């Protein structure tokens, strides 16, 4: 699942690599059920009721709240994150507490998601696994965005051979077999010290996953900056003696917030999906760290038996999270760029 970013702003440098995750295509022209009719001419109207103009952010929120599915998704995500953060308060059982008299209980009032083959409460396991899955998704997106934005900004602003070099490196990363490399890296670094630190398996997953999702953001930011740097306000800043660093960080990058935020959101979903696939294959997090992908892998033997509920709940947790993130990304895109849809 490679990330493809054909952002309308990015350069049309031929097709980019994409596995099956054609997430960004959704962006181009789609309206979602919740978004229907939301973006009409009233969008550009400046708050006439009060007679005073709305700020950019107020307009942003107004457009965002019209995208019903995105708003619902944001609430779902808040709920999931909240449950993960306050896991001890939400769950009635320890995730690791075994109860051998109550193994393989079907879901009921006591054990909402049932119990596993050691009598551990599945609900508690799923909530605690969510801590790791969500942490990995969010951190990987953050690091990838930082790497991608930095490289993209340098390539776009400096131009010339620096641009050529950075973009060829980006292309190279895009033709690499990503998942396979992550698996080899996991085997290599598992249980080893990196720079003198003992790295737990979830942090290892964060480290190696951060290397494969920065390329799209780098391309998008580069494309944006290529067009922005010719604008008058940048010229004015340069004329008044601002340094390159200051121009990039204070004048150019703030204008790229929208596309960067949208892509970062989508990377959260991709990172969670990829991490869960790695953990499912046995090349991701290892006990005592447990993620949703690991829980599904742990329960895979129950497919075709009466205990298949063991698969449903962690699997649905991944599906629900990634789905919400994708809807949220769609809503953000609409809110940042009202022209993108119509």
């Amino acid at each position: 699942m490679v990330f493809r970013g054909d952002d309308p702003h990015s350069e049309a440098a031929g097709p980019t690599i994409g596995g099956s995750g054609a997430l960004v295509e959704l962006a181009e022209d789609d309206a979602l059920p919740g978004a229907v009719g939301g973006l009409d001419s009233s969008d550009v109207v400046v708050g006439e009721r009060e007679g005073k103009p709305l700020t950019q952010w107020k307009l942003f929120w107004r457009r965002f709240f019209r995208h019903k599915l995105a708003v619902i998704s944001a609430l779902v995500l808040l709920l999931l994150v909240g449950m993960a953060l306050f896991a001890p308060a939400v769950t009635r059982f320890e995730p690791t507490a075994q109860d051998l008299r109550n193994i393989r209980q079907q879901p009921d009032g006591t054990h909402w998601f049932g119990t596993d083959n050691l009598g551990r409460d599945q609900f508690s396991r799923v909530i605690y696994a969510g801590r790791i899955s969500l942490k990995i998704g969010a951190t990987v997106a953050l690091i990838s965005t930082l790497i991608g934005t930095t490289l993209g900004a340098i390539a776009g602003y400096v131009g010339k051979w620096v641009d050529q070099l950075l973009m060829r490196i980006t292309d190279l990363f895009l033709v690499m077999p990503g998942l396979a490399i992550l698996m080899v890296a996991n085997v290599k670094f598992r249980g080893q010290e990196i720079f003198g630190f003992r790295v737990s398996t979830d942090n290892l997953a964060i480290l190696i996953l951060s290397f494969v999702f920065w390329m799209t953001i780098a391309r998008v930011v580069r494309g944006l900056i290529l067009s922005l740097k010719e604008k008058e306000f940048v010229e004015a800043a340069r004329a008044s003696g601002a340094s390159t660093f200051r121009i990039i960080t204070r004048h150019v990058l703030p204008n790229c917030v929208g596309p960067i935020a949208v892509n970062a959101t989508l990377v959260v979903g991709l990172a969670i999906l990829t991490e869960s696939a790695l953990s499912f294959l046995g090349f991701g997090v290892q006990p005592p760290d447990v993620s949703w992908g690991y829980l599904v892998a742990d329960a895979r033997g129950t497919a075709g038996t009466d205990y298949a509920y063991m698969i449903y709940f962690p699997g649905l947790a991944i599906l629900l999270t990634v789905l919400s993130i994708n809807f949220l990304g769609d809503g953000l895109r609409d809110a940042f760029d009202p022209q993108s849809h119509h």
Partner: protein
Amino acid sequence: MLAYVARRILISIPVIVIASVLLFWFVSVSTDPTARLRLSRDPTLVDRERERLGLNDPLHVQYGNWAKDFVRGDWGESYISRRDVSTEIRTALWNTTQLILWAIFLCAIVSIFIGVYSAVRQYSALDYTFTTASFIGLSMPPFFFGLLAIHFLTTELRLLLGWDQPLFYSVGMHSATDKGFIDFLRHLALPVLTLSVQLVAGWSRYQRAAMLDVMSSDYIRTARAKGLPRRKVIFKHGLRNALIPLTTVMAIDIGALFGGLIVTETIFAWPGMGRLFVQALLQGDTAIVLPWMIVVAGFIIVFNLLADVLYGVLDPRIRY
């Protein structure tokens, strides 16, 4: 046109070479072909093996030797099966290719149908259904869908039908006793279905966007204005042009599939590239790892090239 194709092929060669250097370096530092010998009682065995494999040479010498052998077709020998790596990969590649061929055939038809319908009946109830379904498809972890398919379409369906054997098998390519075509299809169905979820979700969105774009263009309005039947406008004037972007996306996606089915093939024990790689890693058969990665990267590069060229061939407005 020909000059453009030639130029694109020439640009691809250094990309393949540099990719192979990086992959060689990565695999060299990440894997240890002698790891499986560490438990041997013979203390000199590891050293002798390292010498035999040339692991004590400087890395660039190792790369040179390896590249020479690789180009000649000598890809080494699997540590586990003792068969040629090239044979192993060729077999696995063919099995994966069968999966991919059936899937793209199916997915292309379904995606085009959904895409055209959604564009022509934009904002209809079915359009919303397809849109939501595609979001779900893109958010679906393949292993989750695969396990659900095994649960419901193998076991539950068998119980429902009251048969001794399931209608769809979930392990391997053939039954031990039956090697017929029908038996093959019964093995093929679930992996293809699992693979199709994401492909259809992505491609149908793409086709919808392309179709919407085309249908709002001037020549479609002209075609309508001169009184052509609706069917002819949609399929002859609209669809034919709206297929161009999808073709290139399909080429790119297909290139990524050859090494991208690791999860799907693992779940259904399909003896293809993905399963070969997982087995090799789990068994410490590092001889497979590098050639596998080179082949997979090669497919990605070649299919990207194909996408670029196709775009030019199909759309004569593109000038080079």
